[in-house]
């Protein structure tokens, strides 16, 4: 077995082991945390959901691969044991299934967009973003696209909403675009795990509430957004939208009720100060600790990975 092939099996096996273990830990933790989910913001929920993929990827890239390349002796005859092969197969399944799942979602979104003929494009007054007007049977407001998300509004929606409602709805969708929610959804598609769908739903609901908050500046704009939301929800459903798109319409009655009631009782909430400095400090401390102990850590990782290979 060649050196690099053995390495690839080890990396895939390690990824699978870490990814599945962390996903199970997050799934169990979520069972205890979900009753408090309403008080969590969208970013925290997303970080928790994406943790297994991110952590497994980082550990493999920064520890498992370097430890193998630096410490594994080049021995062409060494083979990989059953455990290692089984884990590597699991890793291949996760990677291939994730890639297929993401590609299917992308294709579905592309097909949906292709089925909506564009009628005209106009630029927003106070933003760089442009709006693409589309011809559809129902009033639709959505942001589609991963790298350069586009705001799509159906002609019916333009006719249905008054100018203030339209502005509020556009601000809501632009908030989705600026927080790259479609890209985040794609990343979740790549890392599907059976017991984490509840956490995903909670994140999506929190993302809608965050976009509502970003779109509203006072009580009047809150009512404009609530009214726009009701008008769109009464004529169309978010279920008609592709998965990799964010739309104004809610997915469930409960979500509709929550959002409308929240907008009706809107009051000024000072935005919580971003904890960027805290995060930067945390990351720098982590990197510093890693740098100091990198050599011994690589040796330990190598010893552990040898157990997988044998």
């Amino acid at each position, binding site marked *: 077995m060649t050196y690099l092939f053995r390495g690839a099996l080890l990396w895939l096996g390690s990824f699978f082991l870490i990814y599945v273990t962390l996903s199970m830990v997050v799934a169990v933790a979520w069972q205890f945390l979900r009753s408090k989910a309403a008080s969590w913001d969208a970013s925290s929920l997303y970080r928790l959901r994406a943790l297994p993929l991110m952590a497994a990827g980082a550990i493999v890239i920064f520890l498992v691969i370097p430890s193998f390349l630096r410490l594994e002796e080049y021995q062409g005859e060494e083979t990989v044991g059953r455990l290692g092969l089984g884990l590597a197969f699991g890793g291949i399944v996760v990677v291939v299934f994730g890639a297929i799942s993401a590609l299917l979602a992308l294709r579905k979104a592309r097909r949906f967009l292709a089925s909506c003929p564009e009628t005209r494009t106009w630029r927003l007054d106070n933003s760089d973003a442009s709006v693409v007007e589309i011809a559809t049977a129902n009033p639709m407001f959505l942001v589609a696209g991963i790298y350069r998300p586009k705001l799509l509004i159906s002609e019916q929606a333009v006719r249905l909403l008054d100018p203030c409602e339209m502005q509020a709805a556009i601000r809501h969708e632009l908030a989705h675009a600026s927080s790259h929610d479609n890209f985040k959804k794609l990343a979740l598609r790549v890392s599907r795990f059976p017991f984490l769908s509840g956490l995903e739903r909670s994140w999506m609901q929190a993302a809608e509430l965050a976009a509502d908050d970003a779109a509203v500046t006072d*009580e*009047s704009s809150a009512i404009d957004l*609530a*009214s726009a939301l*009701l008008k769109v929800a009464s004529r169309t459903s978010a279920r008609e939208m592709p998965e990799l798109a964010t739309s104004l319409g809610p997915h469930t*009655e409960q979500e*509709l*009720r929550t959002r*409308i009631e929240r907008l009706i009782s809107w009051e000024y909430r000072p935005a919580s100060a971003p904890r960027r400095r805290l995060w930067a400090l945390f990351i720098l401390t982590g990197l510093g600790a890693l740098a100091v102990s990198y050599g011994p850590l690589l040796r330990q990782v190598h010893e552990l990975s040898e157990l997988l290979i044998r």
Partner: protein
Amino acid sequence: MGSIKTWDSKQPQLGPFETHLLALLCQRKDATVRELLQSGKIEAAYTTVMTTLDRLYKKGFLDRDADVQRQAFRYRLKQDKRIFYRAMLGANLNCLLQSAANPSLPLSYLVDAVTEHDSALLDELRRAVNHKRQELRRRGKP
């Protein structure tokens, strides 16, 4: 899907009393004629219930065992509850659609009935939004 086949549209038609008895048996594991009468949900003679259950058994909807102690048959549904409800709904809908001159009419009533909750919620929320808008206008906010 053999179990579903038993309840398909080729099954003999069910009358209202037969449907009622099947629904009662659906609520309990099994029952004799007397137990069904004692539930107070049937206003029929013992022999009527006995004959109807026997007919349902012969049509293949029910299974039965002899209850030696009570010297009677103990009847139970032959299929799962969900399959029963699905078959009942399907049969009733079929009947409804076949009886209407224009099949789209009963379907549209069904859609109305199913979405009634939606529209009630939307009305409720719409009233709340309008109320808040009026309140803002009174306070001088457009």
